[in-house]
């Protein structure tokens, strides 16, 4: 079961994860990551823009690569767009597999790619105005881990 989408309003991760888990009977493990907007550094809001022709197709291509690389039963990848408040979920990735390692590694793989190589542009609103955000060096280093040779 594959569910890849963009959402332009607040969502409750449990309402996505429960049906996703139910839709993969016989799974051996499910791993879920939920990212939220941090309430620190005086951030009042985060605005995420995307480009329709590239962003969702890019997420689907990432799902294809995850499915080719890991032994998966299902993959859920949901990303917020638009204006997001601190404390609200911004991303939810859940992987169902027969064995735990595939589920855990898939979520790690997908998150590293979403964090620095997905078609999103992000800016933060602080007291002194809007500031554009670029990936941190750590995000690029996290992504580079997956470029090493691996058996496929």
């Amino acid at each position: 079961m594959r569910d890849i989408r963009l959402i332009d309003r607040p969502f409750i991760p449990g309402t996505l994860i429960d049906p996703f888990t139910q839709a993969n009977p016989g799974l051996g493990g499910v791993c879920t990551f939920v990212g939220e907007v941090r309430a620190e550094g005086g951030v009042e809001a985060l605005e995420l823009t995307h480009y329709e022709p590239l962003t969702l197709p890019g997420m689907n291509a990432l799902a294809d690569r995850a499915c080719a690389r890991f032994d998966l039963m299902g993959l859920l990848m949901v990303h917020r767009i638009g204006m997001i408040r601190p404390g609200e979920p911004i991303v939810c990735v859940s992987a169902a597999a027969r064995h735990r390692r595939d589920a855990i590694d898939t979520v790690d793989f997908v998150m590293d790619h979403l964090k620095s190589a997905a078609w999103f542009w992000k800016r933060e609103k602080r007291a002194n105005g809007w500031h554009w955000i670029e990936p941190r060096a750590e995000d690029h280093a996290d992504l580079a881990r997956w470029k090493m040779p691996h058996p496929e």
Partner: protein
Amino acid sequence: MPVRVLFLGQLADLAGTGEISVPAPLDWDGLLRSVPAAVAERLPAETVKLACAGQVLADKISLCAMDGDEVALLPPVSGG
């Protein structure tokens, strides 16, 4: 139909608008002449990508947008 040129992310701030309309056909030199100077300065950078009709161009200089095409100017992504 003209070519629709879209400015994404911080390029929209530099352009002062989200999009402009430019007569077709539109090539790389024409694009540089059509966008505000602050944007034109950024376009040659390797980190700035160009999409035409929904496809990211491997070589920006080869841009050849026809009637009704959408050209998107894509600054470095912030990631999700």
